[in-house]
Each structure stands twice: as C-alpha cells, then as structure tokens.
C-alpha cells in the first residue's frame, strides 16, 4: 500500500530543491524556473491530500494554482525582457538600487 507520506516527502524535497535554486543561481530566468518548481511541488502535495481525504477540493485548488502560476509567469517574463532591454543583463545581482 502506498502511503501519502511518500508523495509528501517527495514534494518536500522538490520544494527544497526549488529553494536552493532560487538562492544559489544568479540568472533571473533560472531563478524563475526554480519558483515554478516550487509551485509544482505544492500542487503535488495538494493532489495527495485530496486523495487522502477523499475530497476533490485539493485538486480544484491545484488547478487554480496552475492558472495563477501561468499568469505570474507571463508577467514576470515580460518584466525580465523589459529589464534586459534596459540593462543588457539578466543577472539579479546587477539590480542593486535597493542598497542602503
């Protein structure tokens, strides 16, 4: 019998990987992809819970997450393109205007 814990553990590991990706990469696009990875890990968790409780609410929620992730990806990528056009760089380290 498969246990929910297995899926959940896998989702946790995927999430952690996404975190490391966000922190350790300089390229804005790769950072963004890591964020998408994190979102997907959460979706997996939701679906697992839905099956665990015998309720479709988890799946519906995962569906909405996907939609929002899509919208977010669109806007974010547009931003990256726009910034690249100004500064010719996709390195996140170059955006240092918040320095105090």
């Amino acid at each position, binding site marked *: 019998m498969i246990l929910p814990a297995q899926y959940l553990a896998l989702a946790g590991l995927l999430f952690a990987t996404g*975190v490391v990706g*966000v*922190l350790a990469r*300089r390229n804005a696009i790769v950072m963004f992809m890591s964020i998408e990875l994190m979102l997907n890990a959460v979706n997996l968790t939701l679906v697992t819970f839905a099956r665990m409780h015998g309720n479709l609410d988890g799946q519906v929620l995962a569906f909405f997450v996907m939609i929002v992730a899509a919208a977010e990806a669109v806007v974010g990528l547009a931003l990256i393109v726009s910034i690249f056009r100004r500064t010719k760089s996709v390195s*996140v*380290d170059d*955006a*240092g*205007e*918040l*320095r*105090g």
Partner: protein
Amino acid sequence: MSAPIFEAAWLVPALPLLGAAILLFAGKRMSKAAGGLATVMMAGSFSVGLWIFFELLSMPAAERLHTSTLYTFIKAGTFEVALDYRIDPLSVLMILVVTGVGSLIHLYSIGYMRGDERESRFFAYMNLFAFSMLLLVMANNMLIMYVGWELVGLSSYLLIGFWFERPAASTAAKKAFITNRVGDVGFALGIMLIFVHFGTLDFSRVLSEAGALGTGAATAIALLLFAGAAGKSAQIPLHVWLPDAMEGPTPVSALIHAATMVTAGVYMVGRAHPIFAQSPVAMDVVAWIGLATALLAAFIAFTQDDIKRVLAYSTVSQLGFMFLALGVGATSAAIFHLFTHAFFKALMFLGAGSVMHGSNDETDITKMGGLGRAMPWTAATFVIGWFAIIGVPGFSGFFSKDQILAGVYGSGGTILWVGALVATFGTGFYMSRLVFLTFFGPSRAPEGVRAHESPAVMVWPLALLAVAAAGAGWFGATVHGGGFHRFVAPSVCAAHDPAHVAEQPRVQTCTVDAATGEVHPLEREGGAGELVLGSVATAAGVAGLGAAGFMYLGGFPWQRRRERPTLVWKASRNKFFVDEVYQFLFTGVGKAVAATAAFVVDRRVIDGTVSRLAHGVGALSVVGRKLQTGMVRTYAVGVLGGVVALGVLLVARAR
C-alpha cells in the same frame, strides 16, 4: 513700675532711623547739614537715654525692669514674636555708651569727612548703624536682637567699604560681612534651639527659666550663641576681619570696631549668662578662646607698623579679655571693661585719625615720631588713653582690668590667670611702642612733611573722651561697692545664693543687701587680698611699658634689627599666616573642587557619557547598515532563513 518716659523709649532707636531715612533720600541736597542732622539725632537719643537712666536710678533696684510691646508681627501657632523692647540696667548702659560715644564720634566726623563727595551718605550709614545697634541692645527677644545683629553687620559692610573705589576697601567689607555671616549661622541655630527648649524667644521667660535647662542642651545652645559672638566680636577663629576693616574711615573704626559693634558679642553672652552658667563646658570654651585671642592679637600687635592696625589688634585682644572674664563667670567685670574700653579705645582711634589727618594721611608709625611737639592736644589725649589701657592706677582701665584678673584668679583658673598676666604685659608693650614711636623721639617723617594739629571740631571730642577715659573707672572702683556694679548686677546675675559660690565658681553670683535692697555681685579674689593681685597686674603692665621704652626710646637699633628678621618676628608680622591658611582651605580647596566638578565630572563624565551614547548609536547603525546590501538574493536568504526558523520553532513547540 513704669514712668511715662519708658513708654517713649522707642524714640531712642527711632531718632537715628529717622535721620538715616532723611539723609538717604534727601542727602544730596543737604550735604553741608548732613553731619549736623545726624549728630543732633544721636544727641537726641542720648538725651532720652539719659532721662531713662535717671528714672531707673530713682527706682529701687529690684524693680528696674520694664518691657513694652510695640507690635506683634509673627503669630504662627505657638511661635509668637513681637517688636518689644526691654529697659533694664544693662540695656540702658549700652544705650548710653552707644549714643554717648556715638554722638561724640558723629561730631568728630563732621570735621574728618568734610569735603568728601558722599558726605551725607556717610552720615546716613552712621545713623543707620546707630539704629541697628540700639535695636540690638533694647530687644526683649532673641529674634529682634538677631535682626539688629544682622543690620549692624550690614551697616558695618557699608561703612567699611565706604570708599569702595579702593579695591582694598571693598574686599575688606566683603571679608567682614562673610566672616560675620559664618558666625551668624551658629547664632541662628542657637536661637532655634532656644525656641525648641523654651517654646519662646522672649528674654524675660528664657532668662528666668534657664535654670531648668539640662547641661547638654545648655552646652549646645551656649556654644552656638558663642559662635555668633565670636564672629561679631572677632575672636579666634573668626578674628580675621577686624584688622582689615581698618580700610574704612577712622570714625567708623572708632565707633564700630572699638566701642559698639564688636561689643555686641560681649553684650549677648553677658545677657545670656544664665544659659551659659548651666554649661561648664561652654564657659571653659569661652574663657580659653578669649585668652587665646588676647594673647595672639597682642603678639601680632608687637610688629605691626600701621597705627590703625595696632589699635585693631588691640581691640581684638581686649575683647579677648572680656570673653575671658565672661568665661569665668565674672560677668559684671566683663561689662565694666566693655564700658571703659569704649571710652579709651574710641579716644585712641579718633586720636589716630587726628594724627593721620595732621600728617598728610600717613599711617606708618616708622615714618612718624616726635608728633607730641607738633600736635599737643592729640598727643595729650592719646596719652591718657594709653595710660588707661595699660592700667596705670587711677585710670579707668586699671580698675576694669584688675577686676577681670581678680575674677579669673578667684574662679580657680590659675593657668588662665597667668596667661592673662602675659597678655597684660603684651598690652603694655605694644601700646607703649605705638606711643613712643608716634609721639616721642626724633621725627622720621619724609622731607617736606609738616605735621599740624587738627581743627577744634575734632579736638573737642578727644578731650571729652579723655575725661571719660580717665574718670570712668571710679564708678566701679570696687566690685562690691562700686555704683556701676551695683547698677548692672541685677541684669547679669545667674545665682543669688552666696552659700553656693564654692560649688559654682564660674557663675556670677549676687547677694541682696537686706537693708537697702541693693544687689551686689559677689567679689571673689580667693582671699589673697585685692591689693596684692592689683599690684601684680599693674606690675605686668608697667613691665611692658619699660620693655618698650628700652627698645624704642633708648637707642636700641630696632630699625637695623629688622633687616635680619627672626622667624618669630615674621610669624608675628604676618599674623601667623591665618589668612593664608583660610585662603588655601576655602578658596584653594574650593577652587579645586569646582575645577574637578567642571572639568572632570561635567566634561568627561556627563558630557562624555552623552557623546559616547551618541557614538554608540552611530556604531550600531554602521553595523546595521550592512543589512541593506541592495542584493535581492541576500534578502531571499533572509526570508527563507526566517521561514525555516519559524518552522523549527513550531515543530518544536508542537512536540
């Protein structure tokens, strides 16, 4: 028992007060008449005083007391103080001395201060002083006496610093006032203690109930009161102001610093004798300090060259004698000496003023000499004063000083008596030195200075005072029988049972003559005979005269000796460096404390703490600024780090 004049006794202080008020406000316009007005006011007070005196004489001794309340001005619960005055032999005596000698000095000042640009202001201050002193001696409670006490100090300040353009004068005035104030603190505390123990400040009650006072309380009160007296009457350690007070005009020195103000302390201790009598410790303190002051001042007077300074130290020394007498319970003798001293010292001060006036304001006796030929009247009167002070038999000082010495001997204080004899020798020496150097011998005046006699308006008071200095002693020739003592005794006695004299050698005891109702102070000479004691005392004085004559008349090379001064001479000349010690202790140490407070405490500690606080905040901000890197990724690390930390926390708590 009261006569109508007693009700008008308030006139005595009021007349000089009126004079002072008029002269203060309208003085500029009447500078010519200022002196006259002031003298008239003083003469008026003297007349009223004389009238009261004769009224008092016509009453039996036991009834010579009258008090009168003018106005009750403090009423706070149990504390009640009224402006009331007391007429009894002691206060009337003081009134006569103050107004009598005061009138003569006012008269003398008309000539002395003529031409001074603030002449009317001078007489205003003199009258103010007379008012204050009269308030002091006529007061019937300690608070009014204290008011008069302080006003007298104020008048003294104003008069010492009268020529305030001279820095020495204004400094001397400040010194006098401040030293007085130090003593006055003790006096005020004493008054408060009196209130605590007696519930009132009224003399009538305090003096009659003093016998019930415990020794501890009496000692405390007496010592505090004596502190005030020491300040006002220039006893050790508060004697330092009197020699410097000579910066004031000579009439001021004569009136205030010889005859009246400085005697206020003696008067006060005499008045409070019933309290002092309850405390043998306090009496001892008074006697020993009096003796020490008498000796110290005499010793310093040996080497002073300023004519007024010699007289100032002489005053300090004679005051010491008076306190010595008070301390051994010979209160009546002390008051008698106060009386005679007023005459001969005022005489000598006015004489010194005349000498200065006639020698172009020279004060250095080493530059005088032979003035006896140039100023015969001044010299003659001065010589009479001289005889009085050294105790030539028959003159006033002879009687009063002998009675003091007899009283000391009779109270059992042999060391005190020997010390007093030494001081008497000293008195003879320095006064004779002064007279010989000033009036006798060859003239050492610089070229072109011709001395001349002073005008009549200055010489007449000298003559009158000389008569008094010569003859006043006969009033109290013997303690037991003399009219003076019989008159004053009721005011100063603290015990009335002669049977207890042996147990209480230091208390002024009086007997009441059953037949006449007269009160006599008890004479104590220890049985050795009045004549023997008197001879010893006179011999001491004459020995001093002889020594001075040898040194300063007989060709002793005293001027050459000065070129190689001994340590003893230097100590005497520099007043034993007391002023320097005080300067170091109070200004030096005080300045050091102030400098520490300002530069160390204020600057380094307080300001330093504040700036260090500010720097600390700055340093903190430098560290804190490092958080603001502007790098998104470090912020991300921060966010996720926080998430992990929170997660761990929640899990740990759920466990």
